[in-house]
């Protein structure tokens, strides 16, 4: 049977070669597009590590050029007055590594005998509470930690997985930017955006009154209207005696930020969807035509006793063999990319992409071949033979 099918394919090698190339190229396009889509969907499904709904951030300006005592009293007043507002539930201060701020700081160090490369972030004791962060082991900073023998640090899970695999490091000293006591582990803090990798990251404690703690994170009561921003801005302006502070609604910033990824993603998906429909239609038309042209052959086979299901099986088999060859060829080329680690994506995304592209191609071809071959099998031998 198989041998026979190969013979049939070989007999029409010219047009079959074109179909083969088409399936092969469609597979490659699907593979490339889906790799990107899968990468982003996987990023999105990871925890961000913080909430954005009803979270506001106020950026204070020009604190470093002011007198430190002045900043200290101003910060304390600001904290008190903000907490007194009826819609504000929590107030925290942090250095500029708040979500979506676009700032980042990376540090390398090998004081512990091996290379540690990690993102850094600096926040005070209320920060985790204000952003609803998930501390999965140990605890977040407390006031007393500032006076401890060793300053405190909190790392994310990715930091632990990368540098201290399988070790319980809580309350141990980690020598990275000086000796710090690790007091807690958070699940993630992907502050660069929803679609970014969860890179190793370490939090260090800073006091509220430090001049560089110029980002104020506000956790607002649920459903606080946007117009309330003006009240907050006015209060901040009257306390800081400067009108150059900025206020941002994190949820809005997040939506804006992720739009940059969503738009190409949706464009890519719709283009791929269109390509699939286009190819399916073309394939359907072509098969329908080719099968119609082989009426003589069908009639002959039916006349010498082939069952109608044999006929449809033959046509489906033919196109399936062709598809397997094309997709196999496609997989051979596609798999070189993750194997040799070409390109910026992690291999796992591409393996998934290969699996899904293969399934889509097979499904597509089966769907296209099903109707024409069933029609062919329904042909009455007498009618089929009369044609020639």
């Amino acid at each position, binding site marked *: 049977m198989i041998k026979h099918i190969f013979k049939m394919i070989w007999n029409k090698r010219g*047009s079959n070669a*074109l*179909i083969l*190339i*088409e399936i092969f*190229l*469609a597979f*490659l*396009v699907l593979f*490339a597009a889906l790799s990107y889509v899968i990468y982003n969907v996987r990023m999105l499904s990871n925890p961000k590590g913080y909430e954005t709904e009803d979270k506001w951030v106020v950026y204070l300006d*020009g604190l*470093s050029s002011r007198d430190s005592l002045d900043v200290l009293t101003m910060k304390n007043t600001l904290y008190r007055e903000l907490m007194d507002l009826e819609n504000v539930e929590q107030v925290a201060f942090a250095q500029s590594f708040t979500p979506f701020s676009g700032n980042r700081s990376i*540090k*390398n*160090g*090998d004081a512990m005998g091996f290379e540690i490369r990690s993102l850094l972030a600096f926040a005070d004791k209320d920060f985790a509470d204000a952003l609803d962060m998930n501390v999965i082991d140990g605890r977040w900073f407390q006031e007393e930690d500032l006076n401890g023998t060793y300053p405190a640090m909190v790392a994310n899970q990715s930091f632990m997985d990368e540098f201290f695999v399988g070790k319980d490091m809580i309350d141990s000293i980690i020598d990275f930017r000086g000796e710090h006591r690790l007091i807690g582990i958070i699940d993630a803090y992907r502050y660069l955006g929803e679609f970014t990798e969860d890179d190793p990251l370490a939090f260090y404690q800073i006091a509220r009154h430090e001049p560089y703690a110029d980002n104020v994170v506000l956790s607002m009561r649920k459903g606080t209207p*946007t*117009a309330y*921003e*003006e009240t907050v*801005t006015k209060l901040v302006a009257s306390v800081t005696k*400067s*009108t*150059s*502070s*900025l*206020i941002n609604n994190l949820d809005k910033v997040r939506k804006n930020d992720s*739009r940059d990824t969503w*738009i190409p993603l949706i464009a890519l998906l719709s*283009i791929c969807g*269109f*390509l699939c*429909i*286009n*190819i399916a*239609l*073309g*394939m*359907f*038309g*072509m098969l329908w*035509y*080719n099968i119609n*042209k082989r009426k003589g052959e069908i009639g002959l086979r039916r006349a010498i006793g082939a069952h109608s299901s044999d006929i449809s099986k033959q046509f489906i088999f033919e196109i399936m063999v062709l598809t397997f060859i094309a997709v196999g060829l496609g997989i051979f080329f596609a798999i070189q990319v993750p194997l040799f680690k070409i390109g*910026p994506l992690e291999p796992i995304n591409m393996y998934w992409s290969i699996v899904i592209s293969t399934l889509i191609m097979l499904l597509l071809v089966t769907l296209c071949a099903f109707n024409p071959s069933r029609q062919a099998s329904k042909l009455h031998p007498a009618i089929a033979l009369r044609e*020639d």
Partner: protein
Amino acid sequence: MFKNYIKLAWRVLSRKKFFTFIMLFGISFTLMILMLITAYMQAEFGSRAPMKNQDDMVVLEYITLQRVNYDTIAVVDTLFENGVAVYDTTYDYKSAGRSMNRSYFNPDLLIDNFRDLKTVKETTIFSTNSLFDVFVNNSKIQIQVNHCDERFWDVFNFEFIEGRPFDLSEVEQQAHVAVIAKKLAKSYFGMEKGVLGKTIELDGKNYEVIGLVEDPTSSPDPIITDMFVPYTHQVSRSNSDYLGSFAMVLLANGRMEKTKNEILFAAENISLDKQSHFNELIVSPKTYHEMYAQNLYYNEDPEKSLSFVSWLLFGLISLFALLPILNLINLNVSRIMDRSSEIGVRKAFGATKNEILTQFVFENIIQTLIGGLLGFVLAFLAIYFINDSKILGSIVLEIDLVFFFYSFIICIFFGVLSGLLPAFKMSKLQIVNALKTNQL
């Protein structure tokens, strides 16, 4: 003769509705997407105002200061020579850890070192990272301010709706003047004209509007800001002798390579005395296209970014266009057999191979042009939708002559390519075979 071909093409199209639908669907959507890509490229790289000089632009965006600690590292290796252990020590002088600081430039550093280069005809410095919250009628407007020098208006050719740019004396005197974009006039004053002389309050200072410019239709950072004021107002502009918040755009008056090399040479001569903590200063001049590519795919070498992005784009677009073409060829090859009797008759009456070939390619071009027309309508609707919903941010897609031209070329290319192979196959047909099997 061509009239006949057109008639024939129309007949063929209306004969088998389903196949016509498949074909037109494929052609029109493919062409629509190619047209959208063309429109996007036109918007971003089509040298429209205010980016008319984009092909001459060299951008200095970031400065990197770094301290590399070099160390002599001894590696001791034990070798066995004739059964006796021998110690082989190698010394390697290499970098052992580094700390670096990357940021925008200090404006004075840019002016002192890069303003008077020989291969550069004009330079401008600007800083776009100032944002201000302003409340108008209970709603918040976030104003992005561009602090720039007076030469900014020579490098970027904005279209002034009314008023004028600020000049050197206004920059030097820190005059409170501003040029605003139309979108800010709309959101702040609620009008699109007649805003000269009005004031906008930022950080306690009142800026007088002296110019109103048309909103740009592309996306580069320096031009999409809402408001332009003299750079001398930037308060935090000199927190270090090297780092700051400014970038520079230089217009090369010759080859970009020369200008880049001159910039690199000038950068080598900057002394690091004022910041002894660092021992290396790195700048990376890049062209506008390289900067664009670097934003999409970051590589430290901007040229590599550009070549990676362009190859990827080229590959994806050609793959994308190739598929529908193949699809069309496949369809045509199987369909054209239908007409073997017609060809047989024509050949029997003396038509040459070339005539048959021309006829079929011509028919195919007509079909793709119809598909192209449909695609054009679809693209028109899509462009309207995209501009209306502001999906692409500040980018506005436009339909202009160049767009028409490219779209037409794409259509013809498509038609010839998808029609040639089937037509060639048909034209080779033997008269006897063509006439034998099919009834007329």
